[in-house]
């Protein structure tokens, strides 16, 4: 019984690979479900915002994307810390699998923010602290990916990338608190579950969309992780079995 919950067992690729394989469809399904529900509530049911008109509906993508871009970075930094401390093989694979999705989320945050800014502030872009720090976050993602791509040895790439992630993690709190620390154009936090300033439907649909983005990110990260895992571990027994299973048919 104890053995079941041994973290190390799940941290070993041989266990993780099939587990991820079974979980992916569920995450995809959840993402679709949350997405449809969120879109229904947010796009069809929710009333207009008295200040911003219908333009505010960009929030249903902008905020989840912004959250995920920061959250994924934190998760990557977490994995990196584990990898550097305990030298686990899985952690490097996870950070590499998460990075592209995180970068895309940062990109989406910037893009939707820009598309929102044009009607609201009259400019595609302003140089305020939150926008800038989000841009830096995108650079950090890209820097991480460029660094790991430039190093050929996978283990070395993991370690070097992990170090970079840990150094860059200081940026995340800066993004989050930038609206508090500096006097910015970008609006401050309006989510407060106890007494929200937002209409309940808006809040719910935003949360649903956030769940959708979350599930989507997990599904994609797992998909990528499986490929990376197979590639890196191709000389181990489980990977050979997996690959020769493919040889005689099998999924994909």
């Amino acid at each position, binding site marked *: 019984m104890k053995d079941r919950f041994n973290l190390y067992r799940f941290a070993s690729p041989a266990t993780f690979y099939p587990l991820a394989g079974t979980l992916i469809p569920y995450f995809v399904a959840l993402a679709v479900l949350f997405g449809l529900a969120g879109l229904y509530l947010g796009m*069809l049911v929710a009333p207009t915002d008295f200040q911003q*008109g219908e*333009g505010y509906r960009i929030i249903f993508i902008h905020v989840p994307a912004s959250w995920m871009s920061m959250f994924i970075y934190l998760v990557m930094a977490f994995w990196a810390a584990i990898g550097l401390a305990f030298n686990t093989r899985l952690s490097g694979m996870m950070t590499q699998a998460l990075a592209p*999705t995180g970068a895309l989320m940062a990109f989406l945050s910037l893009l*939707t923010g820009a598309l929102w800014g044009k009607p609201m502030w009259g400019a595609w872009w302003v140089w305020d602290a939150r926008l800038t720090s989000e841009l830096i976050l995108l650079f950090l993602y890209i820097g991480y990916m460029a660094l790991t791509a430039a190093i050929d040895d996978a283990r070395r790439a993991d370690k070097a990338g992990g170090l970079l992630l840990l150094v860059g993690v200081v940026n995340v709190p800066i993004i989050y608190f930038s609206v508090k620390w500096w006097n910015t154009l970008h609006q401050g936090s309006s989510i407060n579950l106890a007494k929200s300033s937002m209409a309940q439907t808006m809040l719910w649909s935003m949360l649903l969309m956030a769940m959708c983005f979350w599930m989507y990110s997990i599904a994609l990260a797992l*998909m990528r992780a499986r*490929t990376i895992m197979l590639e890196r571990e191709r000389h181990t027994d489980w990977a050979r079995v997996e690959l020769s299973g493919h040889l005689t048919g099998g999924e994909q």
Partner: protein
Amino acid sequence: MIYWNSFSDFIAMGGYGFYVWSSFGATALIMTIEPIVVARNRKSTVARLKRQLRADARAENRNTAE
């Protein structure tokens, strides 16, 4: 329940249609392309690994034959 009066209202988004729909469109695009790219990448990687595995097996056979 539904807030909109007509479909064209829905599309117009109170004059913000371009911005709202570009945002949603770009997101939808990215969220469809990314899984496709990942799946493709997986397929080609698996194919390459299989080829390598077979090549290795052949090389080993040759070595043991010698």
